[in-house]
């Protein structure tokens, strides 16, 4: 699904990424790498076969869009450094794209680890009329791309049907990206009449009817 913001075209993917066509940039938020390993290190046996999945999804996106740059909108790594860093390291070595991390509240891994991998770490980033942050921010002048919330919406229908489903949440001046990582939770947002909601299904991104 494609959307246009300030005359720029952005492509939404069922995995939850945002591809900025003119700039050839792939935006991804809330990957929470290392979460499963963090649990396992503390004696909670979450299946570690889920770990490679994040990288398989990332590689698939690189194939689809062939971006020049990848920008992570925060919470790239879930906690302190653990063995999952090796996977990340290997993945970075295997790709040619430039990587930028906008720092999130979970990103407590020391900066020099990223610098060693030539990942640039920033607090926020302004590109033309667009402001990229981790936490949602209110700005008068720019359009804000952010993450942090892990948004989902609740849909209801006849026959007491309801669904809770992760989404991109678009406000007049802001787009909140869904959480990309496997094994990350969600938080329910309620739209106002000025908002738009695009939900993720396995095959496509669908805009939701609002009433």
């Amino acid at each position, binding site marked *: 699904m494609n959307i246009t913001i300030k005359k720029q075209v952005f492509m939404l993917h069922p995995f939850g990424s945002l591809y900025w066509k003119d700039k050839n940039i792939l935006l991804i938020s809330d990957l929470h790498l290392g979460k499963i390993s963090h649990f396992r*290190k*503390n*004696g909670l*046996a979450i*299946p570690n076969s889920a770990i490679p999945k994040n990288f398989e999804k990332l590689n698939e996106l690189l194939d689809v869009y062939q971006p020049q740059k990848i920008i992570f909108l925060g919470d790239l790594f879930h906690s302190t450094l653990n063995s999952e860093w090796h996977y990340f390291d290997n993945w970075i070595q295997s790709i040619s794209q430039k990587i930028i991390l906008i720092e999130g509240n979970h990103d407590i891994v020391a900066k020099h680890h990223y610098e060693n991998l030539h990942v640039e770490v920033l607090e926020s980033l302004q590109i033309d009329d667009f402001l990229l942050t981790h936490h949602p921010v209110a700005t008068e002048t720019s359009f804000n791309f952010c993450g942090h919330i892990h948004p989902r919406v609740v*849909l209801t229908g006849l*026959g007491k049907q309801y669904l809770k*489903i992760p989404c991109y949440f678009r406000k007049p001046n802001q787009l909140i990206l869904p959480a990309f990582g496997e*094994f990350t939770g969600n938080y329910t947002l309620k739209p106002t009449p000025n908002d738009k909601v695009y939900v993720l299904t396995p095959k496509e991104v669908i805009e939701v009817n*609002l009433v």
Partner: protein
Amino acid sequence: MNRAALYQIAENWFEAQNWKPFAFQKQTWKAFLQGKNGLLNAPTGSGKTYALWFPIILNYIKQVDEGKIKKQSGLKAIWITPLRALSTEIKQAAERVITDLGVPMTVGIRTGDTSTTERTQQKNKMPDLLITTPESLQLLLGSKNYAQTFAKCTAIVIDEWHELLGSKRGVQMELALSRLKSITQDMRIWGISATIGNLELAQEVLLGKETDAFKNSVLIKANLPKKITVKSILPKKMETYPWRGHMGLHLLDEVVQIIRKSKTTLLFTNTRSQCEIWFQTLLDHYPEFAGEIAMHHGSIAKETRIWVENAIKNEELKLVVCTSSLDLGVDFAPVETIIQVGGPKGVARFLQRAGRSGHQPGKESVIYFLATHAMELIEASALKKAAAETIVEDRIPYLNCYDVLIQYLNTLAVADGFYPNEIFKEIKQTFCYQNISDAEWLWVLNFITKGSQSLQAYDEFKKVEIEANGLFKINNKRIAIQHRMQIGTIVSDAVLNVKFLSGGYIGSIEEWFASKLQRGDTFIFAGRKLEFHSIKNMIVLVKLANGKKESKSVSWMGGRMTFSAQMSELLRQELYKVNQELLTPELKALQPVFERQQKESIIPNDNQLLIESFKTREGYHTIFYPFEGRFVHEALASLLSYRISLLSPISFSLAYNDYGFELLSDQILDLEALFDNNLLSTSHLHDDLQSSLNATEMARRKFRDIAVIAGLVFTGRPGQPVKTKHLQSGSQLLFEVFRDYEPDNLLLRQAYIETFEHQLEEGRLIQALERINNQEIVVKRCEKPTPFSFPIITDRLREKLSSETLAERIAKMTASYLKV
């Protein structure tokens, strides 16, 4: 000292009290002193405590007399009680005998309420007799040198075994006993159980299948006749009886009349919120009761609960509004009357509550039943019959609980470590794990040492380590502490403590309720109107609220109970009588409702299955009335909706109660197709049920509890929730990651098996389907909801099942705007 001399000591003591020992007490003394194990079937208030304290003490006297033991040589006997509240009373009974006989024994209590200081003192020097809970016993097995603590133990008594039997706490006891058998030389195992349908099985579960302990055991029955009278509370005018609801407050005035006539009354409600609301409403309408009535439920501060219990004993209270927290044990002699609000769902529970009045051998028990909605009056009628015919239910023991086993092995690993071969032999002797295979055992060991994964690069999983000599041990201090905090098999939602801003602990409420509160909101809790201030350090801070302000009542999640098979059978018999002229007072009172039902639909006979269909604003409702109890209906609804969904894409919302179930959809249901395709057949039942389970969320909910017990979720201790945010995960998320990445995980499999065996009860389902297939199906297309359908269609606790694609469903749905 010979046995005769020992009996004489006991008989003299009874004589001094002006009592005469019952036959069952003497039989128990004899069997115990002969070195036998056993199960004693005796009701509360019958003197069962003396049936077992006496031989324990007599055995001690004998051993000291024979010079076999020295005085003061440590733990002699353990008394397990499922409820902490009972421990004081059990202690008093023991101390009374000890003092009177002048035996130098000490009695101690060790439960979650015991202070750290006292626990440390106990560790240094155990009392002779220890009263404790299944969880605290596990904690003792999780401490260093535990084998030494128990070495000289001569007896373990498991009180209220029927309560533990059908739960995972029972499994926890089976495991503890399997260990204690190995580390003691001369220990008798005794259970005490109220009457249940399967006492012989209860004895086998307690002692282990085909074990020496079982072979050397007896079953002793007290056989004390107990007269129970059941009365229904009926209003003067039935026309106004509500069709739905679960409060029963419309009969408040009638209840007050009953309370006034009696010295002390216990009013049992089924939930804690109901308890709060009844208490508050009584005070609002009858302020003169202030000071004479109290409330008792599990979330109220311990001090308050103890105060209430003592006040009942001292005859200071006219009424206590309570929940199952007062179901067991404590001897409340002054209680004359019991009122049950809402269906108790099981015969045993109802009779047990009835037994709380006239709580002395030979006295009559009176229980009033208050039906909260019209249909429940049929239940009242059925319960009367149950009491008259003393019908009792079975308790079904659990099999192959991998979650409890994993917790137990971690407990042993925290203590001194364990050698797998030794422990495997022990657990194979238990009832629960009699069929565990070598492969399953290996999986469990792999799970605790490697996090169940085979070789994977960079894995840092840490829990149980295998030492060079083959000892399985937890060495990491943090993991050990974490495990000790989580020992137990009762899984509840996270709770937060409630405190006054000015200090003073009131009780605990569930986190999800607390999270809905905003500053200034008022809510009723522990009988007080409180104003929410803030949540700080995981504590809910409140102050007393202005009395006039509108307030919410605290609600708790908690599972719903279902009718037992026996209760469903009774209920059907009662209902089918409606079409005959043999009406009980309850059924007579229901006449206006039945007339209304007959006008819109029919009241089925025993050879008819009624199906009603009608349309409302919510969609197309189809209601089936098999009268088989909630769990069977849950299974039937899933099965049927699954089979229908295979015919064409459709989405359902399912609801059920003890009378029937509803399939609600946005499409008209083609009932002809349903019969043409023989959708109620028993063929492929197991596979279809399994598939429907995957489509609904039942197993998912079971998995959450299993994950907590097995230590896959870090919950912290009740009231001291997790502070480590980075280790939290939603239960939904957890289920999905296992389903997608580790479908063979035994814990995941257990979730499905438990849903089948303990919730869906496949066996009962087959019987129900066979019955239905011999019935005539009567389809009634109604104009509007009928009295029978009303409690079902208004139920908000629902399951869903769909065969439409996500995109199809989203297209038909909307997200509603935030109301600004």
